[in-house]
């Protein structure tokens, strides 16, 4: 029996450690540890709900909009406000822009390097890459000849550090299976993705004042009021991102996936799912959201969320107490006791639904939408299952590759919706609808915001008295996915997904890494200081205006 530890997990949003027991080339036990205490609930105590919606955005620079949204919904529930139709559309657009940024970033710049080897692209024949791109029906916005030349220059100058530290040589060099031509195509799209995520953030900034950490999503609606110029810019940006997503992401996914079909065989996890739903429809009902709420048991039977079934257990995490607390629960008392997988080993609490660990995220949303018969998702999933050689078999989706692949369908769906919402907003404005904000008529109450961040189900709950927050609770999606063992000793979703993963090389357990990345984990911020490279010199400036 061998221990394999990945610490830190690379290419994620935050800090995460995974410890695994490996026997006969397979993970037999696993412990996932989040290395960062946030305690944002404590920061918002005694603040106004309007302040809270701003402050909680600082939880994350990738998904601040979702936190503002969930917090605002909690405040609106507490104050009994239903937002106006224009506010609903504007908020959907800001949230959608952030989802597009996050999903594009995750797939190409975080997860893809588990499957794509840009160094192998140096061996590609650009002419064959063009032929392959045509065959795979994927986009060709980059000149493959020029890109290969630039890559070669970079490799010769030792400038490829953005690709360094990956496990390209894992499993004796057999872990990366794409042809050099497909690696070249995907490297082109990796670079284009950097531009497309920035475009998506521009949409969020246009509507939110700035990004990350927007200014216009407030309890009661939105502070964004469109002008003709802004609507025009919005339409152009949305079209640009949509055009790229729709011609690139699904074909790339299918082309990459075809080379890694074994990843359909592992990484299932707990097989139970929660989605609180995201993107409001006119009815403002959770079950009617564009990506609707749904709780799915091990047989994928669908039910509606009941708040009292959400509980948090602290017995394996660095917090005081070892009981289960029913939500909403407003106490956060950190107590670090040392890393011990037999006792407490993480800053992540252990939430459960009806006593069970649950997976949150894109897969959970897709499965909930599929079960509720959302046409775009139903058709898309059926098409993708057919392409993966398992028509109608949802169990294929419950795997490392399934979880990774199906998220692109969600990206395409959101990009499509963005176009619809822009048109809807333009029509509403043309029709003379000018209501964006509704002021509260009370300053006391309690409410919960059920929402989704790109990484999954997001819960904010607050109790407000005389305009000040008395209690606040947040359950972020990665808390569900990275949960430690529960009180019955059952592992959390990611731990379960890791158990059974084939491991050829305990130093570079690439399939475990693929599984971790399939969840898009996020745990939390930093300082950037420039250092000189060895052997390079920095020139000292003493007289800036003088002649040198």
């Amino acid at each position, binding site marked *: 029996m061998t221990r394999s530890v990945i610490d*830190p*997990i*690379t*290419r*994620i*949003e*935050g*800090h995460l450690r995974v410890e695994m027991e490996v026997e006969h080339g397979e993970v037999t036990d696993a412990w996932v540890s989040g290395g960062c205490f946030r305690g944002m609930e404590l920061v918002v105590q005694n603040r106004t709900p309007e302040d809270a919606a701003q402050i909680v955005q600082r939880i994350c*620079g*990738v998904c601040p909009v979702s936190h503002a949204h969930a917090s605002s919904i909690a405040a609106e529930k507490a104050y009994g406000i239903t937002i106006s139709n224009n506010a609903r559309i504007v908020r959907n657009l800001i949230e959608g822009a952030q989802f597009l940024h996050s999903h594009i*970033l995750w797939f190409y710049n*975080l997860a893809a390097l588990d499957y794509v080897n840009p160094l192998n692209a140096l061996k590609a024949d650009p002419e064959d890459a063009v032929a392959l791109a045509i065959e795979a029906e994927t986009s060709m916005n980059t000149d493959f000849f*020029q*890109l290969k030349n*630039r*890559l070669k220059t*970079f490799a010769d100058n*030792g*400038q*490829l*550090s*953005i690709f*360094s*530290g*990956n496990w390209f040589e894992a499993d004796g060099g057999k872990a990366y299976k794409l042809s050099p031509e497909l690696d070249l195509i995907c490297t082109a799209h990796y*670079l284009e993705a*950097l*531009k497309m*995520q*920035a*475009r998506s*953030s*521009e949409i969020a900034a246009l509507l939110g004042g*700035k990004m990350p950490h927007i200014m216009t999503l407030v309890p009661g609606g939105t502070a964004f009021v469109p002008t003709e110029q802004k609507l025009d810019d919005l339409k152009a940006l949305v079209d640009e991102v949509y055009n790229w997503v729709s011609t690139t992401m699904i074909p790339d996914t299918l082309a990459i996936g075809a080379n890694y079909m074994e990843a359909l065989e592992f990484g299932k996890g707990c097989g139970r799912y929660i989605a609180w739903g995201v993107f409001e429809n006119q009815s403002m009902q959770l079950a009617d959201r564009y990506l609707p709420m749904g709780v799915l048991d091990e047989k994928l039977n669908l039910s509606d969320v009941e708040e009292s079934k959400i509980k948090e257990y602290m017995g394996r995490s660095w917090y005081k107490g070892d009981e289960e607390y029913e939500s909403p629960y407003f106490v956060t008392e950190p107590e670090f006791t040392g890393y011990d997988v037999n006792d407490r080993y993480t800053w992540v609490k252990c939430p459960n639904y009806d006593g069970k660990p649950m997976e949150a995220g894109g897969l959970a949303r897709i499965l909930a939408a599929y079960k509720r018969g959302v046409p775009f998702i139903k058709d898309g999933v059926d098409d993708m299952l057919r392409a993966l050689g398992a028509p109608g078999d949802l169990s294929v989706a419950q795997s490392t590759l399934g979880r990774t692949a199906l998220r692109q369908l969600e990206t395409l769906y959101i990009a499509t919706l963005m176009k619809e919402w822009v048109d809807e907003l333009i029509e509403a404005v043309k029709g003379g609808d000018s209501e964006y904000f509704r002021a509260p008529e009370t300053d006391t109450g309690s409410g919960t915001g059920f929402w989704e961040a790109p990484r999954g189900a997001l819960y904010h709950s607050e109790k407000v008295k005389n305009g000040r927050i008395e209690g606040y609770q947040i359950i972020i999606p990665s808390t569900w996915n990275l949960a430690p063992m529960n009180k019955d000793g059952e592992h959390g979703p990611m731990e379960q997904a890791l158990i059974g993963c084939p491991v050829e090389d305990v130093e570079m357990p690439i399939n475990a890494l693929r599984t971790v990345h399939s969840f898009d984990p996020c745990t939390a*911020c*930093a*300082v*950037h*200081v*420039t*250092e*000189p*490279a*060895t052997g*390079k*010199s*920095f*020139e*000292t*400036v*003493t007289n*800036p*205006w003088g002649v040198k």
Partner: protein
Amino acid sequence: MEHARSDAEDEQDVERVCDVRVAVLFVGNKLMLDDGVGPAAYELFCERYSVPENVQLYDIGCLSMDMLFVVDECDVVITVDAVDGTGNPAGTVLRFAPDAMARHTGATASLHDLKLIDLFDAAALLGYEARGLCLGMQVENPSPEVATVGLTPAVHAALPLLVETVAAELTRLGCYIERR
């Protein structure tokens, strides 16, 4: 990210226009003591100078890759950042090429580990042709135990020198900056 708009639109003097497009990116985290020297320089620069339309000033906090669109649109990108490990005393102002910055030796643990050099490298891989110039200041303490706003005395004292260095570089590029 804060973005200072150019004052040129309000000015009558439209003849003095230079067409080289320049972006100055002030980098750093204000909450981390000397790491905030970039944003502090941004504030002092905006206080002292107004810039023409072809010059864009950005306080980018800790963003790096997100600024690719700026590199795409510019002929010259100047960065102003905290620098450590040069062996110079704190407060020393330094000028260097992007390529002189250290690259990762291992994997990036998270998005937070992306560095300025990644911005320049990614831009070059994308085929962007902007020229890069880096200005920085050797710092004393960029990682306080507790989040601290402010600068250590040596770094604070040298702030005007850093700001004048930025002004001088812009002038050398032919940009008509004006003292307020």
